[in-house]
């Protein structure tokens, strides 16, 4: 226990080294570096994948370590995206409006400029007034703060209500789904102030940097995403490594026992839930400028369920498992749904992967849960020689989310 975090978790160093090499490799092969091996659009795909890996690390922290099966963390991810999207859209429209009004014979007043921006942004939902939530959209610093604060405060309020009523297990999962659905439905409304189902668009264009080609912007975001993943991973590893990790793993396996040790279980759950929501917000704020558009469909309940599926397939309770799961499944998913996967002709029926991918994903999820609870991350055990304890099929604790025999280490 007296060793440093890194000495106790060599996997952190290995992970950071692999991430560093990967980032370097992609950078050198990108259009930005004058190579044609990795296209700009694929750099964006890889950058987005790193963001998804970051939100998966957050999910692993809250589910794999603390045993809270939250099916709402993609809502926090989306909120982070919306917060940065507001600034991107406002500033960019501001630039366009100012340059077009510069031709006018009479210089425009500040109110005219703001009115024109409002018309540009909200014309699509039949409005021209700025809603109150856009009050700080012109300030990058404040919107960046909101990227962390808004998901954090929502998680804090939601978690406080849910945890203090001792809602646990599947009931909590359902509540988080309800929260996600409510948020998505609210954002779908045109008068929600965030352009309804149109969402925020044009986010790939950085205000004031129109002269910079997308090949550069994409590589900047790729670096930022890799840096955020590295920091998020190291922070999560630090959180779970010491006594705090012991306590939350205790809560996962046997909540009431932790309570009888004198630990305020609710405060710990709230802490983990809120911190992971903030990490999710940051991941979203880096993802959506690379995607270029965010709309309420991104926050649909199914997205949060995917998140749990990624972590399960990658192997929960180990941070690199979450990264592997998110990267693998999301990349394979875009391959299948992007029409690149060859159709399978069975003679009487042709399997089009665009339609059948979800079925394949669902079957893989069931198969992993039943046959290989350690997920893809479990393959690492073949190399490190980690063995599961022989518990005759018994879980490591009485709680619903507790570690299963095959997931544990001897």
């Amino acid at each position, binding site marked *: *226990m007296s060793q440093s975090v890194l000495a106790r978790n060599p996997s952190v160093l290995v992970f950071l080294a692999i991430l560093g090499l990967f980032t370097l490799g992609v950078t050198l092969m990108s259009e930005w570096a004058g190579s044609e091996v990795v296209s700009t659009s694929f750099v964006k795909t890889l950058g987005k994948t790193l963001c998804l890996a970051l939100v998966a690390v957050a999910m692993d922290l809250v589910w794999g370590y603390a045993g809270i099966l939250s099916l709402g963390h993609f809502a926090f991810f989306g909120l982070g995206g919306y917060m940065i999207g507001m600034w991107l859209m406002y500033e960019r429209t501001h630039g366009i409006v100012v340059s077009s009004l510069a031709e006018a014979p009479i210089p425009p007043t500040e109110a005219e400029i703001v009115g024109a921006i409002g018309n540009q942004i909200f014309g699509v939902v039949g409005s021209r007034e700025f809603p109150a939530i856009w009050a700080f959209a012109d300030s990058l610093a404040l919107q960046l703060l909101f990227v962390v604060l808004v998901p954090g405060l929502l998680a804090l309020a939601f978690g406080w209500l849910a945890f203090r009523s001792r809602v646990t297990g599947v009931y909590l999962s359902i509540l988080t789904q309800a929260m996600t659905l409510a948020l998505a439905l609210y954002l779908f409304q045109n008068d929600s102030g965030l352009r309804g189902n149109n969402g925020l668009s044009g986010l790939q264009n950085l205000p004031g940097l129109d002269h910079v080609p997308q090949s550069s912007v994409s590589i900047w975001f790729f670096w930022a995403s890799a840096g955020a993943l590295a920091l998020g991973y190291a922070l999560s590893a630090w959180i779970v490594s010491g*006594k705090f990790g012991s306590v939350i*793993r205790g809560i996962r396996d046997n909540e009431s026992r932790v309570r*009888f040790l*004198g630990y305020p279980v609710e405060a710990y759950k709230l802490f983990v839930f809120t911190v992971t929501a903030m990490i999710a917000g940051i991941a979203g704020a880096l993802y959506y400028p690379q995607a270029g558009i965010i709309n309420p469909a991104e926050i649909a309940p199914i997205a949060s369920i995917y998140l749990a599926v990624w972590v399960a397939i990658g192997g929960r309770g180990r941070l690199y498992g979450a990264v592997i799961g998110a990267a693998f499944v999301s990349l394979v998913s875009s391959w299948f749904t992007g029409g690149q996967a060859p159709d399978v002709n069975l003679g009487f029926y042709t399997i089009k992967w665009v339609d059948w991918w979800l079925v394949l994903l669902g079957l893989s999820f069931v198969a992993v849960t039943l046959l290989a609870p350690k997920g893809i991350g479990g393959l690492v055990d073949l190399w490190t020689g980690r063995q599961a304890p022989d518990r005759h099929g018994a879980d*490591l*604790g009485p709680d619903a989310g507790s570690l299963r025999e095959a997931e544990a280490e001897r």
Partner: protein
Amino acid sequence: MSSLLEVSGVSVSFDGFKAINNLSFAIGDAELRAIIGPNGAGKTTFMDIVTGRTRPDEGRVLWGEANVSLLGLSEARIAREGIGRKFQKPTVFEDQTVLENLLMALRNARGPFQVLFYRPTPGDLDRVHELAGEIGLMDALGRKSGELSHGQKQWLEIGMLLAQEPRLLLVDEPAAGMTPAEREHTTTLLVAAAKSRAVVVIEHDMEFVRRLGCKVTVLHEGAVLAEGSLDHVTANRKVIDVYLGR
């Protein structure tokens, strides 16, 4: 006599069934007490009430010199007040090492932020080693507790309780499933623990209670049937009828 814990006139019912019926009980500092009684006598429910897991319908539970009411405090708060509880089934954190289990139990700040920045001091580690020696798990500190034998898990749990430094220890059937040698070790641990704190032991096994050599409270249908030395209560007609004479 000033008592450490005073339970008076407590009743609780589940769906009309009176699990505890006007129960009164008191224990002083540094006292060892055994509670015996047939199944369904309310022994575990009694512990649930004291530790805050179950709220009684009526009655008072007063604690310490200041006579603080424990009703309305959370389980975690009651534990921090100095009441430790050992469950019937050994409940240790199976996915964690013996060392991690003991460090978690060690009496230190319990808030999330203090725990996040906590690093064990040399004093903490000394204390853990001392406890591990007492419970005979010195060589097993680095092992996952899920791997321990049944008896070792029971001791680890007792060690965790001692690490909490509670003023009152509630122990539910500590000797269940133990070999005779293990029982003897457990008796020694409990008697030693009771030198500096109050210990309440729930037990079925008469031989084990006899070895504890302490005052005995007999529960029956949620109320105290008899109290006194083991010989005294086993001579009691009512006790023989409901419990011993089965």
